[in-house]
């Protein structure tokens, strides 16, 4: 065992298996959490029948989805239709390789870690476009088009806000960014960047109030209208994994990663700190969803161009200036 772990390749293989298991369980847990949060916000209970506190409910739901027939619409583009769910799910697993769960736990602490995350998360849009186009359904197509427009508008402020952190730390390596926050967390000195990042992350993952591509009161289910069974399940799992990833990145960039506040770890292991902060952010995103009405598509884009991008840009310039002066 020791031997395998010390080997770089062995470490990667074991890690990948752990990542696969963790990402699945995490997504299932998040679905459960979402239903519980929604339930209690709405004065209901949420799932409670299967397992303690209904914890096994999502597993049962997953099994049901696996057992369902995979329907491919007659007029759909068969290849794209089949590729889309796979394409949407695979890229969201990649960021797990570089996420610094604790000091020793990033599977592979690449020096371009941040870049890897953002480049792979962009593939998501492509997958949605393929899925929406391939299903040959007007609702799906509208959803796909909206999704592309939305993501183009939100990638920019997202990256701008991340860039101000990168300017401060002068590195793209996740662990070094965390270590740079030893004494204070970055959201204290970069509040605007943190807020911009968080808003953009919500939009990036198509969560309410930015759930325009799948707005079910308008587009039925948006880009995944035609997907059934586990194909739909993959879209679903990818969405929740994505939420986890953006929150984990937010934790890394702005909330000090595996470290406790102001350098005090309080005897709690790093991984617990990391997960606690991430899940707190996930909770906030869910809280958003069950509070706000949905924006309209043009309002969303004008919000991005008129508010977020100028703010992020100004923040970046000020950061650069301050760093130069110091």
């Amino acid at each position, binding site marked *: 065992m020791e031997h395998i772990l010390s080997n770089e390749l062995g470490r990667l293989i074991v890690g990948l298996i752990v990542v696969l298991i963790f990402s699945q369980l995490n997504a299932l847990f998040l679905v459960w959490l979402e239903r519980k*949060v929604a339930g209690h916000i709405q004065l209901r*209970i949420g799932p409670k029948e299967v397992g303690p506190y209904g914890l096994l409910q999502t597993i049962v739901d997953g099994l049901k989805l696996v057992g369902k027939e995979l329907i491919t619409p007659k007029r759909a583009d068969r290849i794209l239709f089949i590729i889309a769910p796979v394409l949407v799910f695979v890229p969201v697993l990649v960021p797990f390789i570089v996420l610094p769960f604790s000091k020793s736990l990033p599977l592979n602490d690449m020096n371009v870690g941040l870049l890897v995350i953002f480049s792979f998360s962009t593939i998501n849009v492509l997958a949605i476009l393929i899925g929406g186009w391939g299903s040959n359904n007007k609702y799906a197509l509208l959803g796909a088009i909206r999704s592309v427009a939305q993501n183009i508008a939100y990638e920019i402020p997202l990256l701008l806000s991340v860039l101000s952190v990168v300017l401060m730390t002068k590195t793209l390596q996740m662990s070094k960014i965390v270590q740079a926050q030893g004494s204070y967390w970055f959201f204290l000195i970069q509040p605007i960047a943190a807020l911009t990042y968080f808003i953009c992350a919500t939009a990036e993952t198509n969560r309410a109030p930015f759930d325009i591509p799948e707005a079910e009161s308008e587009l039925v289910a948006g880009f995944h209208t035609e997907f059934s069974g586990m194909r739909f399940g993959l879209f679903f799992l990818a969405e929740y994994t994505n939420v986890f990833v953006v929150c984990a990145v937010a934790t890394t960039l702005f909330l000090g990663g595996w470290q406790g506040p102001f350098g005090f770890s309080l005897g709690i292991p790093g991984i617990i700190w990391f997960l606690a902060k991430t899940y707190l952010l996930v909770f906030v995103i869910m809280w958003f969803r069950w509070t706000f009405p949905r924006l309209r598509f043009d309002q969303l884009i004008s919000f991005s161009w008129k508010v977020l991008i100028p703010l992020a840009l100004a923040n970046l310039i000020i950061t650069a200036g301050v760093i130069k002066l110091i």
Partner: protein
Amino acid sequence: MGYFKDILVGGWSLVKGLEVTIKRIYRPVVTLQYPRHRIEMSPSYRGHIELKRFPDTGTHYCVACGTCMRVCPSQVIKLQGEKDKALDAKRVVHYYIDFSHCSLCGLCVESCPMQTLTFSKEYELADESRWDGVIDLVRYFEESAR
């Protein structure tokens, strides 16, 4: 300046909204876990109709006059009476209602000259076939006696 004010005011309104929902998380739930907990039906609840049991005689007074049958807007009532020699009066033998077509208007209850119809408190009326909605009230009456 108005630009920043708009952002701040708008942002603050969102925070207020979040406050409303977060407060609810701690509130007790208002839903009722139905098969585990049951509710009392209100006194005037209208289930399907049933024959009223009068305490003085321990039976119903239906004489199969057919008023309810004629007054029913949906024609869901069919009844059959037969002369009871011992009592020297007509008594109902079968009283069928097709509850699946009943609109619970209560005209039968109100028009009954013997006042022997009433609404039951039955509310778990889901069944497997449409014919399960057909109830023989006389049998229902006899079964409820047991």
